[in-house]
Protein backbone atom coordinates (compact mmCIF):
# COMPACT_ATOMS: atom_id res chain seq x y z
CA UNK A 1 0.00 0.00 0.00
CA UNK A 2 1.13 3.53 -0.60
CA UNK A 3 0.09 6.91 0.58
CA UNK A 4 -0.21 8.87 3.80
CA UNK A 5 -3.13 8.73 6.20
CA UNK A 6 -3.31 11.67 8.60
CA UNK A 7 -5.59 11.18 11.59
CA UNK A 8 -6.81 14.53 12.89
CA UNK A 9 -8.09 17.24 10.51
CA UNK A 10 -6.73 20.12 12.53
CA UNK A 11 -3.98 22.72 12.17
CA UNK A 12 -1.20 20.09 12.33
CA UNK A 13 -3.06 17.66 10.07
CA UNK A 14 -3.75 20.28 7.43
CA UNK A 15 -0.15 21.49 7.59
CA UNK A 16 1.21 17.95 7.16
CA UNK A 17 -0.91 17.46 4.04
CA UNK A 18 -0.10 20.87 2.56
CA UNK A 19 3.64 20.53 3.26
CA UNK A 20 3.74 17.04 1.75
CA UNK A 21 2.48 18.43 -1.57
CA UNK A 22 4.75 21.46 -1.29
CA UNK A 23 7.70 19.08 -0.97
CA UNK A 24 6.69 17.11 -4.01
CA UNK A 25 5.00 14.10 -2.44
CA UNK A 26 2.89 12.51 -5.17
CA UNK A 27 1.17 9.52 -3.53
CA UNK A 28 -2.34 9.61 -2.04
CA UNK A 29 -2.97 11.83 0.99
CA UNK A 30 -6.03 11.24 3.16
CA UNK A 31 -6.77 13.67 5.97
CA UNK A 32 -9.38 12.30 8.38
CA UNK A 33 -11.22 14.25 11.07
CA UNK A 34 -14.08 13.35 13.37
CA UNK A 35 -15.55 16.85 13.26
CA UNK A 36 -17.95 17.87 10.50
CA UNK A 37 -15.83 20.83 9.41
CA UNK A 38 -12.82 21.30 7.22
CA UNK A 39 -9.75 22.06 9.36
CA UNK A 40 -10.19 25.38 11.16
CA UNK A 41 -8.35 27.76 13.47
CA UNK A 42 -8.92 27.21 17.16
CA UNK A 43 -7.24 30.26 18.76
CA UNK A 44 -10.10 32.68 17.92
CA UNK A 45 -12.58 30.37 19.68
CA UNK A 46 -11.66 31.69 23.12
CA UNK A 47 -11.32 35.24 21.77
CA UNK A 48 -13.28 37.02 19.00
CA UNK A 49 -15.47 34.06 18.08
CA UNK A 50 -17.30 33.98 21.42
CA UNK A 51 -18.36 37.60 21.01
CA UNK A 52 -19.48 37.08 17.41
CA UNK A 53 -16.64 39.04 15.81
CA UNK A 54 -15.52 35.96 13.89
CA UNK A 55 -17.81 33.56 12.02
CA UNK A 56 -17.36 29.82 11.40
CA UNK A 57 -16.55 30.31 7.70
CA UNK A 58 -13.85 32.79 8.58
CA UNK A 59 -12.18 30.16 10.76
CA UNK A 60 -11.49 27.69 7.92
CA UNK A 61 -7.75 27.28 7.45
CA UNK A 62 -8.20 26.51 3.76
CA UNK A 63 -11.22 26.39 1.45
CA UNK A 64 -12.34 23.15 -0.17
CA UNK A 65 -10.76 23.95 -3.53
CA UNK A 66 -7.35 24.16 -1.87
CA UNK A 67 -7.57 20.46 -1.02
CA UNK A 68 -9.13 19.32 -4.31
CA UNK A 69 -6.57 21.24 -6.39
CA UNK A 70 -3.78 19.48 -4.49
CA UNK A 71 -5.44 16.07 -4.57
CA UNK A 72 -5.74 15.91 -0.79
CA UNK A 73 -8.74 13.85 0.25
CA UNK A 74 -10.38 15.30 3.35
CA UNK A 75 -12.76 13.00 5.23
CA UNK A 76 -14.93 14.75 7.80
CA UNK A 77 -17.12 13.06 10.39
CA UNK A 78 -15.18 9.82 10.70
CA UNK A 79 -13.51 8.87 13.95
CA UNK A 80 -10.62 6.46 13.64
CA UNK A 81 -11.08 3.79 16.29
CA UNK A 82 -8.34 1.34 15.38
CA UNK A 83 -5.09 1.03 13.50
CA UNK A 84 -4.70 -2.36 11.89
CA UNK A 85 -0.91 -2.76 11.84
CA UNK A 86 -0.85 -5.97 9.84
CA UNK A 87 -3.16 -4.65 7.14
CA UNK A 88 -1.59 -1.18 7.43
CA UNK A 89 -4.89 0.57 7.56
CA UNK A 90 -6.77 2.94 9.80
CA UNK A 91 -10.32 1.87 10.63
CA UNK A 92 -13.15 4.37 11.02
CA UNK A 93 -15.99 4.04 13.53
CA UNK A 94 -18.34 2.78 10.81
CA UNK A 95 -15.82 0.25 9.57
CA UNK A 96 -14.35 2.14 6.63
CA UNK A 97 -10.69 1.28 6.10
CA UNK A 98 -7.99 3.72 5.01
CA UNK A 99 -4.81 1.94 3.87
CA UNK A 100 -1.47 3.67 4.31
CA UNK A 101 2.26 3.39 3.92
CA UNK A 102 2.86 6.24 6.40
CA UNK A 103 0.57 7.11 9.28
CA UNK A 104 0.61 10.58 10.87
CA UNK A 105 -1.20 11.08 14.17
CA UNK A 106 -2.34 14.67 14.64
CA UNK A 107 -5.09 13.79 17.07
CA UNK A 108 -4.68 16.95 19.15
CA UNK A 109 -5.77 17.30 22.73
CA UNK A 110 -9.00 17.50 24.69
CA UNK A 111 -10.03 19.53 27.72
CA UNK A 112 -9.34 17.97 31.10
CA UNK A 113 -12.77 17.39 32.64
CA UNK A 114 -13.62 18.65 36.13
CA UNK A 115 -12.68 15.67 38.32
CA UNK A 116 -15.33 16.16 41.05
CA UNK A 117 -19.11 15.81 41.35
CA UNK A 118 -21.30 17.85 39.04
CA UNK A 119 -19.07 17.76 35.96
CA UNK A 120 -21.92 16.49 33.80
CA UNK A 121 -24.48 19.14 34.63
CA UNK A 122 -25.86 20.87 31.54
CA UNK A 123 -24.33 24.30 31.96
CA UNK A 124 -20.83 23.06 32.77
CA UNK A 125 -18.89 23.73 29.58
CA UNK A 126 -15.39 23.15 28.24
CA UNK A 127 -13.81 24.60 25.11
CA UNK A 128 -12.16 22.74 22.27
CA UNK A 129 -14.38 22.70 19.20
CA UNK A 130 -16.35 25.32 17.35
CA UNK A 131 -19.53 23.72 18.75
CA UNK A 132 -18.17 24.18 22.28
CA UNK A 133 -17.52 27.84 21.50
CA UNK A 134 -21.04 28.29 20.13
CA UNK A 135 -22.44 26.73 23.32
CA UNK A 136 -20.41 29.12 25.48
CA UNK A 137 -21.35 32.14 23.36
CA UNK A 138 -25.02 31.15 23.54
CA UNK A 139 -24.84 30.68 27.31
CA UNK A 140 -23.21 34.09 27.73
CA UNK A 141 -26.40 35.64 26.34
CA UNK A 142 -28.62 34.45 29.13
CA UNK A 143 -26.52 34.52 32.28
CA UNK A 144 -25.29 37.06 34.80
CA UNK A 145 -22.89 35.06 36.93
CA UNK A 146 -20.05 33.01 35.48
CA UNK A 147 -17.51 30.89 37.31
CA UNK A 148 -14.36 30.02 35.40
CA UNK A 149 -12.35 27.08 36.70
CA UNK A 150 -8.67 27.43 35.87
CA UNK A 151 -6.42 30.45 35.46
CA UNK A 152 -4.63 29.26 32.34
CA UNK A 153 -4.81 30.93 28.93
CA UNK A 154 -8.24 29.65 27.95
CA UNK A 155 -9.75 30.37 31.36
CA UNK A 156 -8.34 33.89 31.40
CA UNK A 157 -9.36 34.67 27.82
CA UNK A 158 -12.91 33.50 28.51
CA UNK A 159 -12.99 35.37 31.83
CA UNK A 160 -11.86 38.52 30.01
CA UNK A 161 -14.54 38.04 27.36
CA UNK A 162 -17.25 37.46 29.95
CA UNK A 163 -16.15 40.47 32.01
CA UNK A 164 -16.12 42.65 28.89
CA UNK A 165 -19.71 41.52 28.24
CA UNK A 166 -20.64 42.80 31.68
CA UNK A 167 -20.93 39.43 33.47
CA UNK A 168 -20.07 38.92 37.10
CA UNK A 169 -17.03 36.65 36.82
CA UNK A 170 -15.28 34.59 39.47
CA UNK A 171 -12.13 32.75 38.43
CA UNK A 172 -10.88 29.92 40.63
CA UNK A 173 -7.25 28.87 40.29
CA UNK A 174 -5.72 26.06 42.32
CA UNK A 175 -2.14 27.35 42.32
CA UNK A 176 -0.60 30.56 43.65
CA UNK A 177 -0.35 32.27 40.25
CA UNK A 178 -2.02 32.63 36.86
CA UNK A 179 -0.85 30.83 33.71
CA UNK A 180 1.26 28.30 35.59
CA UNK A 181 4.84 27.92 34.49
CA UNK A 182 4.17 29.36 31.03
CA UNK A 183 4.90 32.91 32.16
CA UNK A 184 7.11 34.56 34.77
CA UNK A 185 5.67 35.53 38.18
CA UNK A 186 5.96 39.19 37.16
CA UNK A 187 3.79 38.75 34.12
CA UNK A 188 1.36 36.52 36.02
CA UNK A 189 1.05 39.23 38.66
CA UNK A 190 0.56 41.95 36.02
CA UNK A 191 -2.35 40.02 34.53
CA UNK A 192 -3.78 39.24 37.95
CA UNK A 193 -3.98 42.98 38.64
CA UNK A 194 -5.49 43.65 35.21
CA UNK A 195 -8.24 41.07 35.71
CA UNK A 196 -9.03 42.30 39.20
CA UNK A 197 -9.09 45.93 38.01
CA UNK A 198 -11.71 44.93 35.46
CA UNK A 199 -13.89 43.34 38.06
CA UNK A 200 -12.97 39.65 37.81
CA UNK A 201 -12.95 38.08 41.28
CA UNK A 202 -9.77 35.98 41.02
CA UNK A 203 -9.34 33.36 43.74
CA UNK A 204 -5.83 31.97 43.85
CA UNK A 205 -4.85 28.90 45.90
CA UNK A 206 -8.49 27.84 45.70
CA UNK A 207 -10.07 24.58 44.68
CA UNK A 208 -13.58 23.58 43.81
CA UNK A 209 -14.70 20.42 45.58
CA UNK A 210 -17.97 20.12 43.69
CA UNK A 211 -20.21 21.82 41.21
CA UNK A 212 -23.54 22.29 42.94
CA UNK A 213 -26.80 21.38 41.25
CA UNK A 214 -29.29 24.24 41.16
CA UNK A 215 -32.45 23.56 39.21
CA UNK A 216 -32.48 19.82 38.35
CA UNK A 217 -29.80 18.94 35.81
CA UNK A 218 -28.23 22.38 35.91
CA UNK A 219 -25.35 23.82 37.88
CA UNK A 220 -26.21 26.58 40.31
CA UNK A 221 -22.71 27.32 41.50
CA UNK A 222 -19.54 25.82 42.90
CA UNK A 223 -18.48 24.76 46.36
CA UNK A 224 -14.90 25.58 47.34
CA UNK A 225 -12.84 23.30 49.57
CA UNK A 226 -13.01 26.05 52.21
CA UNK A 227 -16.75 25.50 52.42
CA UNK A 228 -17.61 28.75 50.65
CA UNK A 229 -20.10 28.51 47.81
CA UNK A 230 -20.21 30.80 44.79
CA UNK A 231 -23.45 30.99 42.84
CA UNK A 232 -23.26 30.92 39.03
CA UNK A 233 -25.50 30.01 36.14
CA UNK A 234 -22.59 29.08 33.85
CA UNK A 235 -19.46 27.15 34.79
CA UNK A 236 -16.61 27.18 32.30
CA UNK A 237 -13.93 24.56 32.94
CA UNK A 238 -10.46 25.45 31.64
CA UNK A 239 -8.16 23.32 33.77
CA UNK A 240 -5.83 22.11 31.07
CA UNK A 241 -5.57 20.09 27.90
CA UNK A 242 -4.81 16.38 27.75
CA UNK A 243 -3.08 14.99 24.65
CA UNK A 244 -5.40 12.64 22.77
CA UNK A 245 -3.28 9.52 22.51
CA UNK A 246 -5.64 6.50 22.46
CA UNK A 247 -4.49 5.35 19.03
CA UNK A 248 -0.86 5.72 20.04
CA UNK A 249 -1.47 3.64 23.17
CA UNK A 250 -3.24 0.94 21.16
CA UNK A 251 -0.32 0.81 18.76
CA UNK A 252 2.10 0.41 21.64
CA UNK A 253 4.01 3.57 20.79
CA UNK A 254 6.42 5.00 23.34
CA UNK A 255 4.42 7.36 25.50
CA UNK A 256 5.01 10.18 27.94
CA UNK A 257 2.17 12.59 28.52
CA UNK A 258 1.93 12.60 24.76
CA UNK A 259 3.18 10.35 21.97
CA UNK A 260 6.98 10.44 22.10
CA UNK A 261 8.58 11.71 18.91
CA UNK A 262 12.13 12.50 17.90
CA UNK A 263 13.36 15.66 16.18
CA UNK A 264 11.99 14.33 12.89
CA UNK A 265 8.47 13.78 14.29
CA UNK A 266 8.99 10.01 14.21
CA UNK A 267 7.40 7.86 16.89
CA UNK A 268 9.02 4.72 18.24
CA UNK A 269 7.59 2.70 15.34
CA UNK A 270 8.70 2.96 11.72
CA UNK A 271 6.48 4.92 9.33
CA UNK A 272 4.32 6.21 12.18
CA UNK A 273 4.71 9.93 12.89
CA UNK A 274 3.00 12.37 15.23
CA UNK A 275 2.81 16.16 15.42
CA UNK A 276 1.11 18.95 17.32
CA UNK A 277 -0.76 18.81 20.63
CA UNK A 278 -0.68 15.00 20.85
CA UNK A 279 3.10 14.71 20.49
CA UNK A 280 5.84 15.03 23.07
CA UNK A 281 9.32 16.03 21.96
CA UNK A 282 12.63 17.00 23.47
CA UNK A 283 13.04 20.76 23.23
CA UNK A 284 16.22 22.69 22.52
CA UNK A 285 17.02 22.85 26.24
CA UNK A 286 16.71 19.06 26.48
CA UNK A 287 13.35 18.91 28.28
CA UNK A 288 10.77 16.46 27.05
CA UNK A 289 7.50 18.32 26.64
CA UNK A 290 4.11 18.62 25.00
CA UNK A 291 3.60 22.03 23.39
CA UNK A 292 -0.01 23.00 22.85
CA UNK A 293 0.34 25.83 20.37
CA UNK A 294 -0.24 26.83 16.79
CA UNK A 295 3.49 27.33 16.28
CA UNK A 296 4.26 23.78 17.39
CA UNK A 297 1.45 22.35 15.27
CA UNK A 298 2.69 24.10 12.13
CA UNK A 299 6.42 23.61 12.58
CA UNK A 300 6.31 20.00 13.78
CA UNK A 301 3.87 19.06 11.02
CA UNK A 302 6.19 20.62 8.45
CA UNK A 303 9.01 18.45 9.80
CA UNK A 304 6.78 15.35 9.68
CA UNK A 305 6.01 16.01 6.00
CA UNK A 306 9.71 16.37 5.18
CA UNK A 307 10.52 13.15 7.00
CA UNK A 308 7.98 11.27 4.89
CA UNK A 309 9.54 12.62 1.71
CA UNK A 310 12.93 11.36 2.96
CA UNK A 311 14.37 14.76 3.82
CA UNK A 312 16.07 14.50 7.23
CA UNK A 313 18.25 17.57 6.72
CA UNK A 314 16.29 19.93 9.00
CA UNK A 315 15.36 18.62 12.46
CA UNK A 316 12.70 20.36 14.51
CA UNK A 317 14.49 23.27 16.16
CA UNK A 318 12.01 26.13 15.83
CA UNK A 319 11.89 28.74 18.58
CA UNK A 320 8.54 28.27 20.33
CA UNK A 321 6.23 31.24 20.52
CA UNK A 322 2.74 31.81 21.78
CA UNK A 323 0.25 34.58 22.29
CA UNK A 324 -2.85 35.29 24.35
CA UNK A 325 -5.26 38.20 23.92
CA UNK A 326 -6.99 39.31 27.12
CA UNK A 327 -9.06 42.51 27.02
CA UNK A 328 -7.05 44.92 24.88
CA UNK A 329 -3.79 43.39 26.13
CA UNK A 330 -1.65 41.25 23.89
CA UNK A 331 0.61 38.82 25.73
CA UNK A 332 3.31 37.17 23.63
CA UNK A 333 6.11 34.81 24.53
CA UNK A 334 9.07 33.55 22.55
CA UNK A 335 11.81 31.11 23.38
CA UNK A 336 12.08 28.68 26.25
CA UNK A 337 11.58 29.60 29.87
CA UNK A 338 14.87 27.93 30.67
CA UNK A 339 17.53 28.99 33.11
CA UNK A 340 18.63 32.56 32.61
CA UNK A 341 21.11 34.70 34.49
CA UNK A 342 19.81 38.18 33.70
CA UNK A 343 16.44 39.86 33.19
CA UNK A 344 15.98 43.13 31.36
CA UNK A 345 12.81 45.18 31.67
CA UNK A 346 12.09 47.25 28.59
CA UNK A 347 9.31 49.80 28.91
CA UNK A 348 6.99 50.66 31.75
CA UNK A 349 4.34 48.17 32.91
CA UNK A 350 2.30 51.04 34.37
CA UNK A 351 2.23 52.68 30.94
CA UNK A 352 0.62 49.61 29.41
CA UNK A 353 3.26 48.03 27.22
CA UNK A 354 6.55 46.37 28.15
CA UNK A 355 8.83 43.43 27.48
CA UNK A 356 10.79 41.23 29.84
CA UNK A 357 13.88 39.92 28.12
CA UNK A 358 15.79 37.00 29.60
CA UNK A 359 19.47 36.49 28.89
CA UNK A 360 21.86 33.64 29.47
CA UNK A 361 25.56 34.21 28.91
CA UNK A 362 24.67 37.53 27.28
CA UNK A 363 22.30 35.98 24.73
CA UNK A 364 18.55 36.37 24.56
CA UNK A 365 16.82 33.04 25.37
CA UNK A 366 13.28 33.99 26.38
CA UNK A 367 11.05 37.02 25.94
CA UNK A 368 7.69 38.03 27.30
CA UNK A 369 5.95 41.04 25.79
CA UNK A 370 2.75 42.74 26.80
CA UNK A 371 1.14 44.85 24.08
CA UNK A 372 4.49 45.23 22.32
CA UNK A 373 4.07 42.99 19.25
CA UNK A 374 6.93 44.65 17.41
CA UNK A 375 9.34 43.87 20.25
CA UNK A 376 8.07 40.29 20.30
CA UNK A 377 8.85 39.87 16.60
CA UNK A 378 12.37 41.24 17.00
CA UNK A 379 12.91 39.09 20.11
CA UNK A 380 11.94 35.97 18.15
CA UNK A 381 14.55 36.82 15.54
CA UNK A 382 17.24 37.53 18.12
CA UNK A 383 16.52 34.28 19.96
CA UNK A 384 16.66 32.13 16.85
CA UNK A 385 19.82 33.90 15.72
CA UNK A 386 21.47 33.34 19.11
CA UNK A 387 22.47 37.00 19.20
CA UNK A 388 24.59 38.46 21.98
CA UNK A 389 23.00 41.69 23.21
CA UNK A 390 23.92 44.69 25.33
CA UNK A 391 21.51 44.67 28.29
CA UNK A 392 21.72 48.43 28.78
CA UNK A 393 20.79 49.15 25.18
CA UNK A 394 18.08 46.50 25.37
CA UNK A 395 16.46 48.33 28.30
CA UNK A 396 16.60 51.68 26.50
CA UNK A 397 13.33 52.28 24.67
CA UNK A 398 14.88 55.04 22.60
CA UNK A 399 17.11 52.41 20.97
CA UNK A 400 15.62 49.86 18.60
CA UNK A 401 15.96 46.34 20.00
CA UNK A 402 17.80 45.09 16.93
CA UNK A 403 20.41 47.80 17.58
CA UNK A 404 21.21 46.23 20.97
CA UNK A 405 22.90 43.33 19.18
CA UNK A 406 26.64 43.23 19.75
CA UNK A 407 27.46 40.00 18.01
CA UNK A 408 25.55 37.43 16.04
CA UNK A 409 26.29 33.74 16.07
CA UNK A 410 26.83 31.91 12.78
CA UNK A 411 23.05 31.45 12.52
CA UNK A 412 22.54 35.19 12.45
CA UNK A 413 21.43 35.62 8.88
CA UNK A 414 17.81 36.13 9.84
CA UNK A 415 18.54 39.25 11.84
CA UNK A 416 18.41 42.57 10.05
Amino acid at each position, binding site marked *: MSGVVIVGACQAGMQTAASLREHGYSEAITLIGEEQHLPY*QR*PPLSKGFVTGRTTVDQLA*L*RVESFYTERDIEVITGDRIVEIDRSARSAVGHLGRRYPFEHLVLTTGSHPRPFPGPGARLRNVLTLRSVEDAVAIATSFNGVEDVVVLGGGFIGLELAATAAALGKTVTLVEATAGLMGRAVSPRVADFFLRQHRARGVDVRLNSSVSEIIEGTPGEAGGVLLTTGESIPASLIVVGIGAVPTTDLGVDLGLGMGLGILVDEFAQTTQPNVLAAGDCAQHRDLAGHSRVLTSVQNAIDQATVAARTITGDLSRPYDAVPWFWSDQYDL*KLQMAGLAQDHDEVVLRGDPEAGGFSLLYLRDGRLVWAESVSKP*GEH*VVARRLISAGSAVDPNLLADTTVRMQDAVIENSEMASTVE
Partner: protein
Amino acid sequence: MPSIFFVEPDGTEQQVDVEPGTSVMMAAQQHGIEGIVADCGGACSCATCHVYVEERLQGRFAPVGSFEDELLDTTACERLPNSRLSCQLTMSDETDGVRIEVPESQM
Protein backbone atom coordinates in the same frame (compact mmCIF):
# COMPACT_ATOMS: atom_id res chain seq x y z
CA MET B 1 -18.73 39.08 -3.85
CA PRO B 2 -15.77 41.45 -3.71
CA SER B 3 -12.66 40.33 -5.59
CA ILE B 4 -9.02 40.56 -4.62
CA PHE B 5 -6.25 40.43 -7.20
CA PHE B 6 -3.11 39.03 -5.59
CA VAL B 7 0.11 39.90 -7.41
CA GLU B 8 3.01 37.60 -6.53
CA PRO B 9 6.61 38.90 -6.62
CA ASP B 10 7.13 37.21 -10.03
CA GLY B 11 4.18 39.12 -11.45
CA THR B 12 1.72 36.21 -11.38
CA GLU B 13 -1.77 37.46 -10.69
CA GLN B 14 -4.57 35.48 -9.05
CA GLN B 15 -8.16 36.53 -8.51
CA VAL B 16 -9.90 35.44 -5.32
CA ASP B 17 -13.59 36.20 -4.66
CA VAL B 18 -14.57 36.46 -1.01
CA GLU B 19 -17.54 37.09 1.22
CA PRO B 20 -17.65 40.65 2.55
CA GLY B 21 -16.09 40.69 6.02
CA THR B 22 -13.28 38.30 5.10
CA SER B 23 -9.78 39.59 5.75
CA VAL B 24 -7.31 39.74 2.88
CA MET B 25 -5.03 37.46 4.95
CA MET B 26 -7.70 34.75 5.39
CA ALA B 27 -8.55 34.94 1.69
CA ALA B 28 -4.89 34.39 0.86
CA GLN B 29 -4.53 31.52 3.35
CA GLN B 30 -7.71 29.76 2.36
CA HIS B 31 -6.77 29.85 -1.32
CA GLY B 32 -3.12 28.96 -0.80
CA ILE B 33 -1.58 32.23 -2.00
CA GLU B 34 2.12 31.71 -1.39
CA GLY B 35 4.09 34.46 0.24
CA ILE B 36 1.53 35.38 2.89
CA VAL B 37 2.71 33.31 5.83
CA ALA B 38 0.37 34.57 8.58
CA ASP B 39 2.12 32.70 11.37
CA CYS B 40 -0.34 33.88 14.02
CA GLY B 41 -3.48 33.19 12.02
CA GLY B 42 -4.67 36.76 11.95
CA ALA B 43 -4.24 38.04 15.50
CA CYS B 44 -2.09 41.05 14.56
CA SER B 45 0.78 39.39 16.42
CA CYS B 46 3.51 38.47 13.96
CA ALA B 47 4.03 40.71 10.90
CA THR B 48 4.22 37.78 8.45
CA CYS B 49 1.17 38.77 6.37
CA HIS B 50 2.70 42.01 5.09
CA VAL B 51 1.33 43.28 1.76
CA TYR B 52 1.37 46.39 -0.39
CA VAL B 53 -2.11 47.76 -1.07
CA GLU B 54 -3.07 49.39 -4.33
CA GLU B 55 -2.94 53.13 -3.57
CA ARG B 56 -6.22 53.85 -5.38
CA LEU B 57 -8.23 51.91 -2.77
CA GLN B 58 -5.92 52.23 0.21
CA GLY B 59 -8.08 54.81 1.97
CA ARG B 60 -11.15 52.57 1.89
CA PHE B 61 -9.73 50.17 4.46
CA ALA B 62 -9.76 50.95 8.18
CA PRO B 63 -6.66 52.93 9.14
CA VAL B 64 -3.49 51.37 10.58
CA GLY B 65 -3.91 50.56 14.30
CA SER B 66 -1.19 50.97 16.91
CA PHE B 67 -0.23 47.26 17.15
CA GLU B 68 -0.17 47.06 13.36
CA ASP B 69 1.93 50.21 13.12
CA GLU B 70 4.49 48.74 15.50
CA LEU B 71 4.57 45.44 13.61
CA LEU B 72 4.96 47.14 10.22
CA ASP B 73 8.28 48.49 11.50
CA THR B 74 9.55 44.90 11.78
CA THR B 75 8.55 43.46 8.40
CA ALA B 76 11.09 41.45 6.44
CA CYS B 77 10.60 43.59 3.31
CA GLU B 78 10.77 47.34 3.37
CA ARG B 79 7.84 49.26 4.84
CA LEU B 80 6.35 51.56 2.21
CA PRO B 81 3.53 54.11 2.55
CA ASN B 82 1.08 51.48 1.24
CA SER B 83 2.31 48.69 3.54
CA ARG B 84 -0.36 46.92 5.59
CA LEU B 85 -0.79 43.69 7.51
CA SER B 86 -3.35 41.82 5.47
CA CYS B 87 -5.03 40.37 8.59
CA GLN B 88 -6.19 43.92 9.33
CA LEU B 89 -7.72 44.50 5.88
CA THR B 90 -11.40 43.59 5.82
CA MET B 91 -12.95 43.20 2.37
CA SER B 92 -16.19 44.95 1.44
CA ASP B 93 -17.90 46.17 -1.73
CA GLU B 94 -15.98 49.41 -1.18
CA THR B 95 -12.69 47.59 -1.73
CA ASP B 96 -13.87 45.31 -4.56
CA GLY B 97 -11.18 44.75 -7.16
CA VAL B 98 -8.24 45.77 -4.99
CA ARG B 99 -4.78 44.77 -6.18
CA ILE B 100 -2.65 43.37 -3.37
CA GLU B 101 1.07 43.01 -3.96
CA VAL B 102 2.77 40.20 -2.06
CA PRO B 103 6.34 41.02 -0.94
CA GLU B 104 9.39 38.85 -1.67
CA SER B 105 9.71 37.61 1.89
CA GLN B 106 7.92 37.59 5.25
CA MET B 107 10.51 36.14 7.59
